[in-house]
């Protein structure tokens, strides 16, 4: 008899009375499964879902979702109760207003749809300041920033406006009775009305003292002008008719004198081809960092800070004082001689500008320009952008610690972040009994305030400005305040007990003080008002005291200088919360989402800094420790061609921590190193072994390797003397061992499209006019709902910009030499590795910028490989992309020779992994309703702003008329106030673009592959000088 054996696990099993054990035997698992695997653990264990339940729920919900998906959602439409007369759903309204944030000034048009602003455009009717740069274009996104201050606060708790006023008045009254000083700290006020309101307030509270503070002051410029002309202002310049522009560290395409010189500069940079003796300005640029302006110069010389001073001092002595003993450094002397030689050709057509921040330097510049009677020098129409005192913040800090200042009110400034004494100030503000922040965002300083009064965004507020003599501006709101905010001036009016709205106050003030021959409505409509004001009296004084130039001549450089500069994208860091600007690549380094130490090639070698490219094609860089004074920072280093050896650069505006989403708290705060508010500092650099930083760099190939088909350029001399075939030959390709021009029908594998009827859109890009400023990139992003993908994705080369501006360095002294070298070594180059050498940029390279978007090829390689015909050609010249048809094979992107197609690797909207503006309902308000938001898995690219051409055509149809030239425009071409990008209908023979199509400078990118693009480039003409090349700074 076989009996089933019973195995027991322990002695307890033999005891039948053990109930626990028998219960245990019945169970599958000894312990309960952790039910919180499937979500939150319920309070009672019995109710927690089992695995089976989970599967049931899963199955049911999947089935339910599948069934529900078959029915469309019920969509509600809510029309206006009372529709405002001027709003027509589906049509845009434009309002003229002005932009000013203490850093940029611009006359703009705001495009609104159904009452919400969606885009900034330049106000081309304005006579001046019509230039909109990338920061101005991007500023619209800050309106919809979820980090904005939404309600008044007292001690971090939300309160009502009435309560806030009550408590603030109470405090102010006590301080007033005790006659204790309260400082009202603002950025430079260029608004006459605001100044008047502040005066009203200080009249009521005589203990309030108004101080203006700029994060990036222009103390020297203001002092020099005041000394000479008696007013605290900056001299204006107009480069449009200049023949020689000498810039000594003046980054006038960047932030020098608040920028805005692109348009006038470019006017002097484009040679007129109808003229046999075409001319363009000769731009000499001396600087330490490679700036945007330097990159555009004809002759750029990298010098160290003291050398810059020397050059200026010698120029001053020679021109103004008439004698100069010369410099002991023969190279400095030869630079000075070269500049003098150029200026002396026609002194009145020359101009000298400088960014050296000292009163002496600026006085020298004024004296030089006065002496040569420069036509570009306009001291009689001064600019009022900067009013601040660079040491104001130190005064305030001392006042607080000394107990003289008992209260602080501030607006438009963030001194805890932007001043070198930020940390100290932070403590002091916290200890203050009364601190009131009038701020739009909860920035580093606003978080410390006892009281916070949220102010409106500039698109929600009224404002007026007086940026320049005779030039007045109005800013009007384009949307009702989104949150419980008020105009900054309204709060001051309320505190001063003036029962008036801000707009009425402005209106009154203007009618009484400013308007003469115009009316209020007209001014609000235009956005600007030109007043016939007498020019600033300019006396040409012969016997002014000579400036002591010796200090400059004897200046000595430290072994290593740090040059702090604001980036083109982020500026002074006010817009650090703006994902568009964070993702906008730096025009020079092409790195996005970072600031870094720019180091010259030779210094990098010396210090041991490396930049490596990893297998993904992303750049990593060494991290170094820098020490300025007693402050230390760890920063990543990027090797930057063009950087003067002996100097390093670091961008300001990064490292913001408050009022900025986590993703955008990036980089280091370089303001901490801005000791004494000086941009030049002595620095010590120590490498940190083995520590690397990951960069998100958009461009990895820095040179064109002598490929003349991408970038074509010539010299002004050749352009004037040679035939077109010499400097801009049509590319030839080989057919049956015969050289045939690529434009001939013979070598065309395709039947050509008939574009002769209807519109035929073309875009011309002038490499001479393009400064690389990147306004078009952001304008395109705003117009076409281009998503922000974040640093990690940019690093994987998954950036989504439809329009990029490629920047190329020459490998030799110039691109010309590159081409020559490439041709010479064509046969053996590969073998001897000379091509390899062409990959490396020169120490001081020539730079060229090339905007690249979809080239809208008539014979598009992408179209032929699409298996589902999602991308096809249109009769109007556009290469059309139907997103709803695309299945995401990405063949098209692989077959595109220009690499302009962008793939949606993820859904970038409503996705918390991409927590930028498209992830919040507020941020999505900026989206253009005329352009579809692309979904995951589809390809996208530039559409030639189809929605805009369609709209223009629609308007013409409704009005029953032909379309005039200039009506068709893309977002990029419109944003380019320099006129580098021209869009239009080439079938309209009178159009500007049709003329450009027949220009001698026209070429197509990589024409030999026969794509026949509808985007053409105008080759770059350089005003090179054949005289001896001046050496770069000697190595230290």
């Amino acid at each position, binding site marked *: 008899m076989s009996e089933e054996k019973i195995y027991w696990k322990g002695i307890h099993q033999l005891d039948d009375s053990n109930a626990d054990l028998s219960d245990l035997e019945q169970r599958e698992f000894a312990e309960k499964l952790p039910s919180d695997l499937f979500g939150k653990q319920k309070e009672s264990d019995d109710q927690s879902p089992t695995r089976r339940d989970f599967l049931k729920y899963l199955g049911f919900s999947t089935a339910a979702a599948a069934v529900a998906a078959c029915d469309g959602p019920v969509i509600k*439409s809510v029309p*206006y109760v009372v529709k405002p007369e001027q709003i027509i759903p589906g049509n845009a309204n434009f309002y003229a207003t002005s932009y000013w944030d203490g850093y940029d000034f611009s006359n703009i048009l705001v495009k609104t749809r159904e009452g919400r602003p969606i885009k900034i455009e330049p106000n081309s009717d304005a006579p001046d300041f019509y230039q909109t740069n990338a920061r101005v274009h991007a500023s619209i996104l800050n309106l919809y920033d979820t980090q904005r201050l939404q309600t008044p606060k007292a001690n971090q708790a939300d309160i009502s406006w009435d309560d806030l006023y009550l408590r603030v008045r109470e405090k102010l009254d006590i301080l007033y009775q005790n006659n204790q000083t309260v400082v009202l700290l603002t950025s430079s006020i260029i608004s006459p009305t605001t100044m008047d309101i502040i005066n009203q307030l200080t009249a009521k509270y005589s203990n309030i003292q108004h101080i203006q503070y700029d994060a990036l002051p222009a103390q020297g410029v203001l002092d020099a002008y005041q000394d000479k002309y008696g007013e605290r202002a900056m001299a204006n310049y107009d480069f449009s008719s200049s023949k020689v522009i000498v810039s000594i560290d003046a980054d006038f395409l960047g932030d020098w004198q608040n920028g805005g010189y692109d348009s006038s500069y470019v006017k002097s940079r484009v040679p007129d081809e109808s003229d046999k003796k075409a001319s363009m300005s000769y731009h000499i640029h001396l600087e330490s960092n490679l700036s945007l302006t330097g990159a555009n110069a004809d002759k750029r010389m990298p010098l160290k800070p003291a050398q810059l001073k020397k050059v200026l001092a010698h120029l001053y002595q020679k021109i103004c004082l008439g004698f100069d003993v010369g410099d002991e450094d023969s190279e400095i002397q030869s630079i000075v001689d070269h500049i003098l030689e150029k200026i002396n050709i026609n002194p009145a057509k020359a101009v000298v500008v400088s960014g050296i921040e000292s009163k002496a330097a600026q006085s020298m510049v004024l004296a030089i320009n006065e002496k040569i009677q420069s036509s570009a020098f306009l001291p009689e129409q001064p600019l009022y952008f900067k009013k601040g005192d660079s040491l104001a913040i130190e005064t305030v800090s001392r006042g607080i610690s000394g107990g003289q200042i008992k209260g602080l009110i501030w607006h438009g400034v963030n001194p805890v972040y932007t001043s070198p004494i930020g940390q100290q100030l932070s403590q002091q503000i916290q200890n203050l009994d009364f601190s009131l922040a009038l701020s739009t965002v909860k920035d580093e300083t606003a978080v410390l305030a006892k009281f916070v009064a949220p102010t409106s965004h500039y698109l929600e507020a009224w404002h007026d400005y007086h940026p320049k003599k005779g030039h007045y501006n109005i800013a009007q709101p384009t949307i009702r305040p989104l949150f419980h905010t008020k105009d900054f001036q309204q709060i001051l009016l309320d505190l001063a007990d003036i029962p008036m709205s801000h707009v009425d106050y402005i209106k009154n003030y203007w009618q009484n003080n400013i308007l003469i021959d115009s009316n209020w409505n007209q001014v609000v409509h235009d956005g600007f008002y030109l007043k016939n004001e007498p020019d600033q009296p300019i006396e040409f004084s012969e016997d002014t005291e000579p400036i002591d130039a010796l200090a400059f001549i004897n200046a000595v450089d430290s072994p290593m200088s740090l040059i702090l500069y604001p980036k083109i994208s982020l500026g002074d860091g006010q817009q650090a919360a703006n994902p568009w600007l964070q993702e906008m690549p730096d025009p020079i380094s092409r790195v996005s989402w970072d600031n870094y130490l720019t180091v010259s090639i030779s210094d990098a070698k010396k210090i041991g800094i490396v930049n490596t490219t990893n297998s993904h094609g992303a750049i990593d860089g060494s991290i170094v420790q820098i020490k300025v004074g007693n402050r230390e920072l760890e920063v990543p280093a990027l090797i930057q061609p063009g950087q003067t050896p002996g100097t390093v650069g670091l961008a300001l505006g990064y490292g913001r921590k408050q009022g900025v989403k986590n993703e955008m708290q990036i980089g280091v705060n370089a303001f901490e190193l801005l000791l004494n508010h000086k941009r030049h500092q002595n620095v010590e650099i120590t490498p940190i072994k083995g520590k690397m930083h990951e960069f998100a760099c958009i461009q990895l190939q820095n040179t064109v390797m002598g490929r003349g088909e991408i970038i074509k350029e010539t010299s002004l001399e050749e352009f004037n003397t040679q035939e077109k075939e010499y400097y801009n030959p049509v590319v030839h390709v080989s057919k049956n061992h015969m050289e045939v021009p690529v434009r001939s029908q013979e070598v065309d594998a395709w039947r050509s499209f008939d574009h002769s009827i209807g519109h035929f859109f073309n875009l011309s890009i002038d490499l001479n006019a393009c400064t690389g400023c990147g306004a078009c990139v952001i304008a395109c992003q705003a117009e076409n709902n281009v998503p922000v993908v974040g640093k990690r994705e940019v690093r994987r080369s998954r950036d989504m910009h439809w329009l990029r501006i490629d920047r190329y360095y020459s490998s030799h002294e110039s691109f010309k030499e590159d081409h020559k070298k490439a041709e010479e070594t064509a046969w053996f180059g590969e073998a001897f590795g000379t091509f390899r050498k062409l990959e490396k940029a020169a120490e001081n390279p020539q730079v060229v910028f090339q905007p690249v978007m979809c080239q809208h090829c008539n014979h598009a390689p992408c179209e032929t490989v699409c298996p589902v015909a999602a991308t096809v050609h249109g009769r109007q010249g556009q290469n*059309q992309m139907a997103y709803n048809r695309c299945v995401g094979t990405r063949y098209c992107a692989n077959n595109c020779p220009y690499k302009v197609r962008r793939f949606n690797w993820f859904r970038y909207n409503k996705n918390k992994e991409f927590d930028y503006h498209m992830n919040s309902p507020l941020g999505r308000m900026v989206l253009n309703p005329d352009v579809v938001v692309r979904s995951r898995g589809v390809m996208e690219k530039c559409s030639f702003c189809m929605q805009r051409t369609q709209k223009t055509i629609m308007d013409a149809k409704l009005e029953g008329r032909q379309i005039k030239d200039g009506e068709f425009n893309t977002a990029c071409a419109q944003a380019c106030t320099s006129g580098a990008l021209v869009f239009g209908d080439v079938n309209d023979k009178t159009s500007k673009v049709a003329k450009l199509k027949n220009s001698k400078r026209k070429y197509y990118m990589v024409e030999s592959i026969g794509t026949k693009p509808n985007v053409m480039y105008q080759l770059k003409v350089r005003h090179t000088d054949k005289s001896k090349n001046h050496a770069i700074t000697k190595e230290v």
Partner: protein
Amino acid sequence: MNYTKEVSEDEIKFSIVFLKSLLFLVLTIFPIELLGQDDATIQQGKTLFNTHCAACHKVNRKAIGPALAGASERYDREWLYSWIRNSSAMIAAGDPIAVALFEEYNQSVMTGFPQLSDQDIDNILAYTDYVPEVVQAAQLTTATEGPSETPTLYKIFLIGLVIVLVLLVVMLYFIQKRLIKIKTQVESDFRPDPKIDPIWKAFVKNQFLVFSTVVLLFLVGLYQLYGYMMQIGIDKGYQPIQPIHFSHKIHSGDNQIDCKYCHASARVSKHSGIPSLNICMNCHRNIAEYTGEEDLAAGYDQEFYTAEIKKIYAAVGWDEENQVYTGQTQPVRWVRIHNLPDFVYFNHAQHAQVAGIDCQTCHGPVEEMEVLYQYAPLTMGWCIDCHRETSVDLLGNEYYQKVHEELSKKYGVEQLTVAQMGGLECAKCHY
């Protein structure tokens, strides 16, 4: 009785009173009689009222101006003549009644009608004095009679139906009984051959038949599935219930209001636009009650429609009593019927204004729709079919002249279709 006897004064008085009251009784009971007499007067009055007064006055209700019923009794006739011809002069002259009236109605000035004769004004007053009661009485009777009559009719019908059904059941029972009887008789005589398979077994044994049936079923199934898949997301016939029962039939059918009066942005914008409530109030400020035809079968009587009008008032914040806006608004959340996907660009102005296509082409007979529904499938195939077939007629639009001339020469046709004009290109509708 002595009739020759002289009647006393009392008796005479009494008879006069009696006669008068008799007359009064007759008049009140049979107002129609009187209407018959003054029919012409009242008709003229009505015409005049509608032409001159109806914009601001109602007969029985306050509007911009006061209700006119009983005006002839409230005011002196001569005063009325002068008021109607030139009210502002009276106010200026300081006539107390005039000034009071002017103040009461928010100082809105009444248009003067100097062209009206005394007779005209009398006619209007005759109309405003008599018409309303009659109309209201008539309304009341129909309103009360309607519902009471319907149930009895239904009841009779239902009872009849029940009787017929019961009869049918009884008859069927007898027939079945009969049949069972016959069956048992037959079965006892007849036994089936056991060797013959039942039909389903025979079918299973025939492999060819099984195979072909499976294939057939599979194909039919596929076809059905395809059909099912293809209708997903197509909402032709979608007819949701709206928060306010807005009848296009009444507005654009009965009252012939142009589509683009309310959907004005269809002329200039890509959206036709759901009219904002202020457009409703252009008319409904004065039309507070529905007096048109009713559809009783569907339950849409006049009261129903009037209640819907009140919903507009509630939404727009219109205080009917005092004829003012309260400022308390409640936007209407309409259910959107025509939904194009986000990736489709459609422009109403292009179709309705430039091409001059009737709205009905795509939206169907809206003027007959009591409740609006989606008429067209709104699929891409549907769009494209139309673009292929429709010839463009763009005479007089200067924009098209040149391109039309050149293209028609190229294609060798008199008139181009939309497709030939480039209306089939992807990016014309998708970007």
